[in-house]
């Protein structure tokens, strides 16, 4: 018997999902041209794929290349489809599933970091506590007056989640997160 895979977007998508969804991080190297991000995002929304985090910036100015990092969630079959569908986009050079690659390298997951700016306002004991905790998290103060701090924190998403949760009762006002930047360990490039 052949194991039947789940179709994505097929009209005959009536069989029960048997594979478990996984969270993977993809690196997509693209020509830095107008609309390229819209093509990538449109693919995800049009085909019903998830985006949990998305980061994009030009990485090689001379070659006009940008690197898009996408954290997505799906069954292995859907993740394979996402990779192939991304590769079909004309200005896409390469798609690397960093999570799969890290497994091939014998690691649990790729290196993933996120930066967040966290604004906390308050006075008295809470303010002191916020500063103390920020120090413990190695967040740095990048702006402050007598009534507020803005902390800059870098780390894994889970660390930032935790930091934000702790700051909530201490006068959390505003959060800005960059989304995940990721690459694999070791000397090889993507």
């Amino acid at each position, binding site marked *: *018997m*052949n*194991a*039947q*895979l789940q*179709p*994505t977007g*097929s*009209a*005959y998508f*009536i*069989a029960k999902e048997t594979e478990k969804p996984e969270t993977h991080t993809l690196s997509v190297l*693209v*020509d830095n041209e*107008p*609309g390229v991000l*819209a*093509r990538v995002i*449109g693919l995800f929304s*049009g085909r019903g794929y998830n985006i949990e985090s998305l980061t994009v910036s030009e990485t090689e100015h001379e070659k006009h290349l940008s690197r898009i990092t996408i954290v997505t969630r799906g069954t292995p*079959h859907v993740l*394979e*489809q996402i990779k*192939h*569908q991304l*590769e*079909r*986009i*004309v*200005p*896409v*050079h390469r798609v690397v599933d960093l999570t799969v690659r890290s497994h091939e390298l014998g690691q649990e997951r790729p290196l993933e970091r996120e930066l967040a700016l966290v604004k906390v306002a308050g006075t008295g004991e809470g303010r002191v506590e916020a500063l103390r905790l920020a120090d413990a998290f190695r967040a740095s103060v990048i702006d402050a007056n007598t009534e507020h701090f803005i902390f800059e924190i870098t780390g894994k998403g889970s660390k930032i989640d935790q930091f934000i949760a702790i700051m909530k009762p201490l006068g959390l006002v505003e959060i800005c997160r960059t989304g995940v930047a990721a690459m694999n360990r070791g000397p090889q490039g993507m």
Partner: protein
Amino acid sequence: MSSGQNERREMTGAEMVVQALKDNGVKHVFGYPGGAVLPIYDEIFQQDEVEHILVRHEQGAGHAAEGYARSTGKAGVMLVTSGPGATNAVTPLQDALMDSIPLVCLTGQVPTSLIGSDAFQECDTIGITRPCTKHNWLVKDVNELAAIIHEAFHVATTGRPGPVVVDIPKDVQFAKGIYVPPQTAPRTSYQPKVQGDLEKIKAAVELMANAKRPILYTGGGVINSGPEASHLLRELVDLTGFPITSTLMGLGAYPASGKNWMGMLGMHGTYEANMAMHDCDVMVCIGARFDDRITGRLTAFSPNSKKIHIDIDPSSINKNVHTDVPIIGDVGRVLEDLVRLWRATARADKKALHPWWEQIAKWRARDSLAYKMNHDVIMPQYAVQRLYALTKDMDTYITTEVGQHQMWAAQHYHFEKPNRWMTSGGLGTMGYGLPAALGVQIAHPDALVIDIAGDASVQMTMQEMSAAVQHEAPIKIFILNNQYMGMVRQWQQLLHGNRLSHSYTEAMPDFVKLAEAYGGHGIRCEKPDELDDAIREMISVKKPVIFDCRVATLANCFPMIPSGKAHNEMLLPDEATDEAVANAIDAKGRELV
């Protein structure tokens, strides 16, 4: 190709467009003028190398270009204005995307200084067409225009073919810049893989050589790959002795008169083709994509077979059905290797296939395309059969609209060559056939081009009769007129207790008068014994003809795999009582399309 005198010459953007068309070998453009493309139309006016075919609606331009493309293997080109011109092009663009048709669409755009200001006839063409094209470009600098148009032709026609849009603001059309001729170095990120992995092809040959119940399941990819692919496919069938079936899009790649031909497969395919798909032990899918019309219920799809899948698009592999031996590459190239390797290493044990062929003969004996002949009323199947009999020895091209007539045409018209059958498969676009026939006729002025149409579909793009008359394209619109949207009515019978909600056309136009009003020729036929003479008349008239063939109003299209059912659960015509039809689809299947 034009001579070198045009290389790196200064010209306006509009001149570049026409020059680029010439340099890409374009002879015909289908289009409709408007404010934002006037400079290009002015250039078209001043030359006669590229002929412009004026349509009556931009959708017609798109389908005509698709028909042109499918019947020639070259890119079809359409030219439309901004705003509504571009939005009207969306249907043919999506149609071409789903059926992998090379279509280059040039759109005018408001001047760059007005983009984003909600200017008159402005729309976000690039945004709107992004999901329905293979790629699209907004040209902001006249110096990039030529290279972009050349790249557009390259992207549309290579790899898995598809539609592209080049959006050209009006100021860019007026601006002067340097024209560059087509160059060979395409962008580095776009490198379709055409050569198949030899190890995989070896594995495929081995699997095929040991098969006891093999089947070749071929699709539009064989036709897209070019005539050589069809030739190699025929060679492969001769070498292996395997039975062969095809999707709707692939008809003609293998001749219907070939002894290994089992007819089309899928929802309205033959019993033998679908049963063989279900019971095979090795399936060789060549340039097809396991579409839901083909597979039926996926969990019951060909449960005991090893599957080989040849496709140029890696995303087609494992999308719907798990493949044991995936081969990514152009069908023609892969078949070349496959045939060569088969000759070198394998020997067909045609004796071992005997029991399989005997089984197929039993299925074939069920005669799944049979219908009850009627001597008073024309049966739609009979009409297609007579049309086939009277036109098969001519240089004939067939287009269709979408619905019952399309399936009857696929079942009862038989194709011997590729590129002779133009139909909207993936998107299922009613109104495709008439403009497509126009496009085919422009490409093949002396051929007999027939649109096998339905009375509902044909009214969606009827206005192109006017274009056909203007351009002296003697297309034949053969309407199987049952006064219903036949397939909608059939599904209402299957799913909704035969409550025929809005599927009957109460105010049907007089198609004969309509033909005459357009300056064409109208024929009506209501009796089976008058049909042959009427068809002969249609063939002999050297101008556009609308043939109003009045057929049985409530005929259903069988055989059928009801939604949610498997290949071996077909509803056959002789079993399709009213009760069987009413209960054919269960609760789960009702949700499906």
